[in-house]
């Protein structure tokens, strides 16, 4: 008799029932469903609709891809994000290398300096760059006072200012992403190469950099996606004429109140992100395979 009882019981000896087990998931899932999943579905649906027509239509997409203005905005987004990705990765590399290899007491300080700005928020940092770069700003005033230039250089309210600001915002993430990768490289490899007579430069070129290619790729992809969806920095440092997808979406929703077109732009941005992420995972998998076989 007890053998039978045991048989019925064998899957989960003393656990709660299935329903009970899933119960705590209910509140978080409900919120995600209500304020994320359903709105996202609705937005995608909206992009295939027109206020004056019934049924599904690609009209808004046709408008997006035939309009010079939106296409320029999209191209500007790609160029801006690409530049930021390159700047972030180049600037993050020495810091990450130092953090990965140094055992000095400065390490903690450098780590704090590298990561702390993240606490300050985008507004503070963007505002900081604005007062550094603008026409009556820090740099221009200093250069004019030194007599290097007569007229202020156009450093803000353009692509240059936005790239500087975004690089600053995203740099900590680049450092962390490269740091993980560099910590995975055995320092003994570098030592043995040096013992074999390789110069510092060739150790870095032939050992460290090739082994951290996956980290470089993921840092660039991260920086690209973060820039492409950034709103505040392009809005403040780019000025009124600097339009990227994020700022155009904002205008469509709040000034033109064209929801369908805003939804199209948001979907284009989303698809762009997904493509980059997909390329990223593919590339990382391939690089990983190459390095570990």
């Amino acid at each position, binding site marked *: 008799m007890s053998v039978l009882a045991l048989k019925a019981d064998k899957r989960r000896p003393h656990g709660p029932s299935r329903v009970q*087990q*899933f119960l*705590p*998931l209910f*509140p*978080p899932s409900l*919120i*995600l469903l*209500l*304020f*994320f999943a*359903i*709105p*996202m579905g*609705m*937005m995608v649906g909206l992009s295939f609709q027109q206020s004056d027509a019934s049924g599904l239509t690609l009209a808004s997409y046709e408008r997006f891809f035939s309009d010079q203005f939106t296409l320029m905005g999209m191209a500007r987004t790609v160029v801006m994000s690409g530049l930021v990705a390159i700047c972030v990765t180049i600037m993050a590399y*020495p*810091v990450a290398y130092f953090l990965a290899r140094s055992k000095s007491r400065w390490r903690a300080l450098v780590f704090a*300096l*590298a990561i702390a*700005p993240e*606490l*300050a*928020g985008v*507004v*503070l940092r963007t*505002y*900081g*760059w*604005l*007062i*550094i770069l603008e026409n*009556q700003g*820090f740099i221009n005033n200093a250069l004019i006072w030194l007599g290097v230039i007569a007229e202020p250089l156009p450093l803000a309210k353009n692509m240059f200012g936005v790239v500087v600001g975004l690089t*600053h915002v995203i740099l900590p993430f680049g450092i962390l992403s490269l740091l993980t990768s560099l910590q995975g490289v055995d320092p003994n490899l570098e030592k043995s190469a040096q013992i074999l007579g390789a*110069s*510092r*430069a060739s150790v*870095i070129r032939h050992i460290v950099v090739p082994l951290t290619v996956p980290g470089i790729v993921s840092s660039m992809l991260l920086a690209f*996606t973060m820039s*492409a*969806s950034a*709103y*505040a920095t392009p*809005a*403040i440092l780019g000025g009124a004429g600097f339009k990227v997808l994020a700022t155009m*979406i*904002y205008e469509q*929703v*709040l000034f033109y109140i064209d*929801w369908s077109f*805003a*939804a199209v732009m*948001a*979907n284009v*941005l*989303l698809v762009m*992100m*997904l493509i980059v*992420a997909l390329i990223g995972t593919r590339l990382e998998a391939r690089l990983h395979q190459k390095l570990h076989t």
Partner: protein
Amino acid sequence: MNQVVSALFWVSLVLVLTFITLPLVVVMAASLSPTAVVTLRPWEWTVQWYGDLWTARWLDPFMLSAQLALIVSIASGVLGLLAAYVVAYEKCPGHAAIMSFLLSPLAVPQIVKGVAIVLFLSSAGLYNWLGTPGLIAAHIILTLPFAVRMIATAMFNFDKNLDRAGQSLGASKMDRIRYLLLPIIKPGVFSGMTFAFIISFNNIPLSVFLVRPGETTLPITVINYIEYSLDPVLAAVNVASLLFVLGVIFIFEKIGGFSAQIHGGSK
């Protein structure tokens, strides 16, 4: 040759660190400068701009942002705990898929999430959700995945043998959750909540769609103000809110003890 490479490395390191700190230093100097022209001469500095912060123009948005961040942080902590419990501790059937669902908002840019929520609330006729309720909901969507991930990591790291030890000592499920699981994962929960607080307090891309007159968060108030003036009061606002965030981190750390990690492994 090696010296040149070494020198280049140190120079680039110093330059990058200068780049990182420069805007923060400049904003601090600006907040103390008597005029809009930033001065690095400390004897000219004044704290007058900080005095100007005690007006409704800045205090009201600050109060809204602080309350919003607190609510969002607590909600993310509680909801994250519930979700992580089922996914990472109970490891329910399909926990990997459920985890992907819980983390899915991370794959969507904030600006897109913002549009989606504002379109949803408007199409559903929930106009009175725009403002504070919408801000709370949107920020939770943003912060919950981070909280879930941090708390789930803490739960994954929780040594199941401790649970068995508790069971063999007669502890019921509730006892084990209360006396073993929760105290041990507390640092993870509090780091998730701190993270949620900071993200919410500094947020722009979601808030920008959901604020309305009289219900505007501090960062949005600041960027609206930047549009037409760059006077040093802005610098003072920024420095003050940074100090506030640091204070909050300090308090959360005191309660949650996430940096010390004194309660490491059992070995």
